[in-house]
């Protein structure tokens, strides 16, 4: 039922109105401001200046960093798959004791990320980390700097980004056609053969999708290389951030962002093609629930069990440490010698003691909730139109809506301030700079690509037959949307809302230029309380905020996922519903996320966000 023409769209007044609103929004808030900024960047005096290209390409350091970003992306595409598929199998496919506990352990990366995650690993394995110390007590010849550079960055980011596998792959594996597995077993296939010949091929579309996603996260890696990369392995994202902040260097930042953006666009185009071309029968048509498989070879079982629990410890240690550190005196953390006397509540006292600590929390809660509800609500219908009417207009709009993936948030924010600082006819002659509305607009904008990809995939997974049936029974199209389609994508929509909410909570990059002085958001407050020349407790205070954020994010995920998904998911009594919320240890640049492919699960929780968490190091 795909028509590559505009005409079918024009039959419905509702679609026409939606399209007009969408075109207005895209032009006003995405195209116009950013075009404005890019023109003033690349045409400083009305004359095109290509010197950025020359300046950039003559710099060995920039070229190295760029190469590192692509190298990291490529490596992660392999390593994350290995670890990610393993943890999905041991929690969702194989029958291991304590798989629920394992799942919770692996899920810890959902609720924290950025600088804190990287710092957490550094405190364990870094030069002064306790594992390093313990090993060196036994083997003094071990290099204390063993955990740094390319290797360390890959390890940390691999662990941090398996989030996507847990969410996408975890829910895809639950929908595998179990009868095929039964049949194979009856024919005498071994555990390994079934896994290799049936399970993994069935998951292939989803594995491909998360691989692309991982690649994009690798491209935008920011904090892990900063903390652990050392001088040998720096990536391009920090350079983009520095250059975005200086007017005269902004062209280099934009150029770099465009290079990464092109890679994103190419992957996106591939994704779109695959989405259109393939129909994957990975989803069971007959609802025989998957039964967890026993590993029959005892040696293999022991090995898998040990590996699973070792991995569990690796995942959980940093989180425990962060909670522990939030109760520690900062000198003890930094110097690495901890005694009982160092335990203190003073970090919490500092955070809760400042007069207005609750206000930023509330401001951010309101902003994040509004933005995430609006963006999902607004795009629900849009995503449906895009998915149902692929034609030149919709695909152009779709690509335009991905602009926020290409440009760094800082540039988007600056473009908004400078465009709406005078009465603008596109918005009825209003001025937005200095109002509370502008930050909301920015939050909505930056969440559009992520939301759109996932909603579209959600709609794509609904068989056309459902809609046809409704039409044959005489339902009008709006009624069909409301009563048939909407309930089916609701789990996806709810999950996206929660993910967006979590990722906006501690935003700094957009807020810094856009927040209205009377409504200070959390990211700014965290930053203010963790920087300062005399502030030696910055790391501890960051930990306190992280613990508080973990609690809020955990709650948000529980509210959304715990309620909407649990009745179906709990059927085997052991497996918790997949919470979501990702936390890339990465990126302030193009926060990348690509959808699961068509015809994969409806309620696949999405994942991955790029967040540049407020860092304790001062930016004064």
């Amino acid at each position, binding site marked *: 039922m795909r028509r590559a023409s505009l005409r079918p769209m024009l039959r419905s007044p509702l679609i026409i109105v939606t399209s007009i609103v969408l075109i207005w929004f895209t032009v006003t808030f995405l195209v116009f401001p950013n075009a404005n900024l890019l023109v003033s960047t690349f045409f400083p005096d009305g004359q095109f200046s290509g010197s950025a290209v020359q300046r950039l390409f003559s710099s060995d350091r920039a070229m190295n960093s760029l190469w590192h970003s692509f190298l990291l992306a490529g490596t992660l595409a392999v390593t994350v798959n290995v670890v990610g598929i393993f943890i999905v199998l041991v929690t969702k496919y194989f029958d291991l004791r304590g798989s629920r506990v394992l799942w919770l352990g692996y899920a810890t990366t959902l609720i924290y990320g950025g600088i804190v995650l990287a710092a957490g690993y550094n405190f364990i394995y870094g030069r002064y980390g306790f594992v390093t110390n313990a090993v060196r007590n036994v083997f003094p010849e071990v290099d204390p700097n063993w955990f740094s550079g390319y290797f360390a960055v890959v390890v940390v980011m691999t662990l941090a980004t398996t989030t996507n596998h847990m969410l996408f792959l975890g829910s895809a594996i639950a929908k595998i056609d179990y009868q095929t597995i039964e049949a194979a077993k009856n024919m005498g296939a071994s555990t390994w053969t079934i896994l290799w010949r049936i399970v993994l091929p069935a998951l292939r579309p989803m594995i491909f999708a998360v691989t692309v996603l991982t690649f994009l996260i690798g491209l935008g890696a920011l904090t892990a290389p900063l903390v652990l990369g050392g001088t040998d392995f720096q990536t391009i994202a920090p350079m983009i951030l520095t250059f975005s902040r200086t*007017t005269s260097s902004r062209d280099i930042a934009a150029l770099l962002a465009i290079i990464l953006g092109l890679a994103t666009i190419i992957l996106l185009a591939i994704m779109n093609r695959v989405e259109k071309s393939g129909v994957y029968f990975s989803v069971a048509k007959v609802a025989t629930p998957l039964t967890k498989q026993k590993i029959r070879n005892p040696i293999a079982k022991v090995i898998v069990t040990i590996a699973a629990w070792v991995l569990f410890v690796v995942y959980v240690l940093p989180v425990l440490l962060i909670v522990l550190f939030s109760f520690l005196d900062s000198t003890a953390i930094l110097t690495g010698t901890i005694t009982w006397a160092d335990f203190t509540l003073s970090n919490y006292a500092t955070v809760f003691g400042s007069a207005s600590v609750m206000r930023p929390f509330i401001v951010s809660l309101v902003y994040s909730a509004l933005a995430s509800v609006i963006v999902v609500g607004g795009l629900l219908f849009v995503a449906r139109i895009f998915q149902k009417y692929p034609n030149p207009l919709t695909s152009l709009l779709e690509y335009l809506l991905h602009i926020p993936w290409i440009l760094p948030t800082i540039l988007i924010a600056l473009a908004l301030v400078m465009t709406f600082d005078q009465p603008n006819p596109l918005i009825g002659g209003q001025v937005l700079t200095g109002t509370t509305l502008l930050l909301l607009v920015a939050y909505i904008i930056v969440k559009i690509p992520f939301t759109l990809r996932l909603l579209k995939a959600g709609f794509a997974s609904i068989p056309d037959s459902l809609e046809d049936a409704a039409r044959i029974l005489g339902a009008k199209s709006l009624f069909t949307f409301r009563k048939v389609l909407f309930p089916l994508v609701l789990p996806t929509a709810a999950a996206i809302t929660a993910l967006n909410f979590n990722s906006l909570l501690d935003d700094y990059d957009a807020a810094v230029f856009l927040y209205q*002085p009377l409504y*200070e958001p959390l990211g700014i407050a965290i930053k203010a309380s963790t920087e300062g020349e005399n502030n030696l407790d910055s790391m501890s205070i960051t930990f306190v905020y992280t613990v508080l954020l973990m609690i809020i994010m955990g709650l948000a995920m529980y509210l959304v996922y715990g309620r909407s998904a649990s009745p179906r998911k709990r059927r085997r009594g052991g497996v918790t519903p997949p919470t979501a919320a990702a936390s890339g240890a990465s990126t302030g640049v193009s926060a990348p996320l690509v959808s699961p492919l068509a015809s994969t699960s409806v309620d696949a929780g999405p994942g991955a966000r790029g967040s540049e968490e407020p860092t304790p190091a001062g930016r004064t």
Partner: protein
Amino acid sequence: MRSASIAAVVIGSLALTSCSGAKESTEGEAGGGSSDTLIVYTNSNSDGRGEWVTAQAAEAGMTIEIVGLGGADLANRIVAEKNNPVGDVVFGLNNMFFETLKAEEAITAYEPEWAAEVDTASGDPDDGAFWPIVEQAIVTVYDTNKVSESDAPDELSDLWEDDQYQGRYEVNTALGQATPQLVLAGLLSENLDEDGDLGVDDDGWEAVEEYYANGSPAIEGTDLYARFSRDEVDYGVIPSSGIASRDEEYGTVTGVISPDEGVPYVTEQIAMIAGTGNETGAQEFIDWFGSAEVQGAFAQEFSAYPVNETARAEAPAEVVELIDSLPKQDIDYGFVRENIAGWVEKTELEYLP
């Protein structure tokens, strides 16, 4: 019908959203400077300074709201907003940032009541667009418990020229921040040459290259003094105001390298934002905050070194003693302001490790 009720909730919240969005925006307009609340932009709000200023101002009968952001971000924001300013007053940024604000016409001249009490040379002697309040030295320090004074270098260039210091001094590579920029400005200002690249001769760029190549890059999230105590590095750069609290925290006794050419000084300034809707309020705040009384109290509270000569008597003795002992490096901040972006870019692209 569960799905219907969820749909109702979503639609309901959407409706609520549009209402509250509209409401917020009308409230927001009030923040544009015309209301009674004075919006004060600063990068000097950490360590309780923001709260202190707000409380003191309230006692003096002014309602202020502090917007505290990092230096570069704050300057960017003020410039971006200049057609429709949100803030009324800005203080705490250093002269380099204020030169930028002045060049962008984002601030406007106002001669405060205390103008006669400060050395105009530290501010903007030509146009009086901004006025000095607090002075800081950017110093290279070490822990005298570990490094004896005789082992410490006399000149900064010893750090990268002498092998014994190789890798033992911290270099901050976060060039978006003010302090690393000043270090760079200090290095290059000794080697200015009109014909050189970006106004600097080859020796200057060589010094920069060697400085970064032989240093130990700062570690994000790890304080310099924590690295001292782990014996990772022996030397590093901090603003003078940070010394006292660190000595207390880490039990160090800080020694300061005092090179012949002097050390870079930065002066934090105050100015009225151009186009503020609340000129009277802004001027009242500037007159109050820069006054000898308030600056004296501020200096006492936060170990600052006030430019206001009357207020200086109130500053802690060790602060005054340290600052007075360090000669000022002769840096042409007007020139630096014009070139620092290019310098930072070149360093970032070519010289950072």
